[in-house]
């Protein structure tokens, strides 16, 4: 089987723009969560989120002008802007800018989103009610479609290989990386630009997740405390936004051009809960089966996994159920630790799996485990595994597993291995 390695990383998140800057902040225990500033929240039960910090690129902030011209941004929902930005960073990081036709045809893109152009769709609906359908922009549809990140990246760089997109709610980013890796393994491409993007921190997005009772509502005055996976005080997730994109590459292809290799994608497992549209089954068997399948594919024993980047959204039900499934599978592994980076940046929905795969790869490369912030008093049901509370830990690790679970009962696990 062809082996797949990661040779480029890109990220836009509530902790900034650019992987190195975000990594230094998240391992330093900083939070990207705050009061929502972009729209009116006084009538919403949840008034906190992880918004993208805007400022100078050189300082680690997001400056849209440095990535996409203003005249073009008018035609793009923010989720596409974030996706293109993260892809641009990952491609520059990998140094992969082919010009010959064969290489262009062997490079593909698979960047997804959980929801897509929610703000654009909401604005368009109001527009046709108030001013009539003739006032709707010709760019309304192409600025909302989920697969248009893949489309724009392909057009911008001339990549003519597989052009695909994933839509599996909060599993999107993990599924995109796993599926894209398979395309390389199956020889459909040598290089894939893969990941996820989301920009649902808008009035209708927050209202919608409030309506399904998924968001934290008890920390509106202390937003940085709102996301607290496994802690007794947790009361729902805090939404974040942004994008994570990686460059995946066939091993020999990467070696031949002397690329920097961050790690290897050695395992990928998928499963369905067949249970409920928003709740996981009490025994967590969907997550359990995804993790088991990923380990089997990797040919790695549970005892050899060093770090798990959990789905860990900070919901009362989900955290405990995932913990139980992990305990069942890794119970004999006393050295494994698990953290939730959603404690620092919130839940990036369709971008989460990609962002968290990047954090996992950085943990492998740097020997530092990012912490679970706000984990002051773990639930009684969440005892017996080191959940990396409050502060990062230095550990030399070889194997990391990253979990992502989505509405609809869709689960994905990635197993990533250090490349030395």
């Amino acid at each position: 089987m062809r082996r797949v390695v990661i040779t480029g990383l890109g990220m836009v998140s509530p902790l900034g723009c650019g992987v190195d800057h975000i990594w230094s902040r998240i391992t330093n225990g900083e939070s990207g969560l705050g009061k929502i500033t972009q729209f009116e929240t006084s009538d919403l039960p949840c008034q906190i989120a992880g918004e993208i910090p805007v400022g100078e690129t050189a300082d680690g902030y997001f400056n849209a002008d440095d990535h996409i011209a203003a005249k073009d941004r008018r035609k793009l929902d923010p989720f596409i802007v974030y996706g293109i930005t993260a892809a641009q960073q990952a491609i520059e990081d990998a140094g992969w800018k082919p010009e010959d036709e064969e290489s262009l045809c062997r490079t593909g893109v698979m960047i997804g989103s959980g929801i897509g152009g929610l703000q654009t769709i909401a604005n368009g609906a109001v527009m046709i009610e108030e001013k009539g359908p003739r006032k709707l922009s010709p760019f309304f549809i192409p600025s909302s479609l989920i697969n248009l990140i893949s489309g724009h990246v392909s057009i911008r760089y001339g990549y003519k290989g597989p052009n695909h997109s994933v839509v599996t709610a909060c599993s999107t980013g993990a599924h995109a990386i796993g599926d894209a890796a398979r395309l390389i393994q199956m020889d459909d491409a040598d290089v894939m630009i893969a990941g996820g993007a989301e920009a649902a921190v808008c009035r209708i997005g927050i209202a919608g997740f409030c309506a399904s009772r998924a968001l934290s509502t008890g920390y509106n005055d202390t937003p940085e405390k709102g996301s607290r996976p496994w802690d007794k005080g947790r009361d729902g997730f805090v939404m974040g936004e942004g994008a994570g994109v990686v460059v995946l590459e066939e091993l020999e292809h990467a070696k031949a051009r002397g690329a920097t290799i961050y790690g290897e994608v050695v395992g990928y497992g998928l499963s369905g809960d067949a249970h409920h549209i928003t709740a996981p089954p009490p025994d967590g068997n969907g997550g359990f089966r995804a993790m088991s399948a990923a380990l089997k594919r990797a040919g790695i024993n549970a005892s050899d996994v060093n770090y798990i980047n959990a789905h860990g959204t900070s919901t009362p039900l989900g955290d405990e159920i995932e913990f139980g499934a992990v305990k069942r599978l890794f119970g004999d592994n006393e050295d494994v630790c698990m953290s939730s980076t959603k404690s620092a940046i919130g839940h990036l929905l369709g971008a989460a799996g990609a962002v968290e795969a990047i954090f996992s790869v950085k943990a492998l490369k740097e020997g530092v485990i990012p912490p679970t912030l706000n984990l002051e008093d773990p639930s009684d049901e969440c005892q017996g595994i080191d959940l990396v509370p409050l502060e990062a830990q230095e550990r030399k690790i070889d194997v990391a597993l990253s979990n992502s679970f989505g509405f609809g009962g869709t689960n994905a696990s990635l197993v990533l291995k250090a490349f030395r």
Partner: protein
Amino acid sequence: MSNDVADRVKKIVVEHLGVEEAKVVESASFIDDLGADSLDTVELVMAFEEEFGCEIPDDAAEKIVTVQNAVDFISENV
């Protein structure tokens, strides 16, 4: 009147297509000279409607392919 219309049309074209003002001459074609695509031209016509408070029917819009075409249509119909 028509000078005023021409200035306003040019301003919209510069803003929407992100092109240099000097390139937006009367004879310039939106697609061939100013880098617009077919969707850009639809949006341009909508911007003209907004600016001049008029409605440009689709069959007329299809014939507006240059800056001069836009100025002529607006001068004659608004």
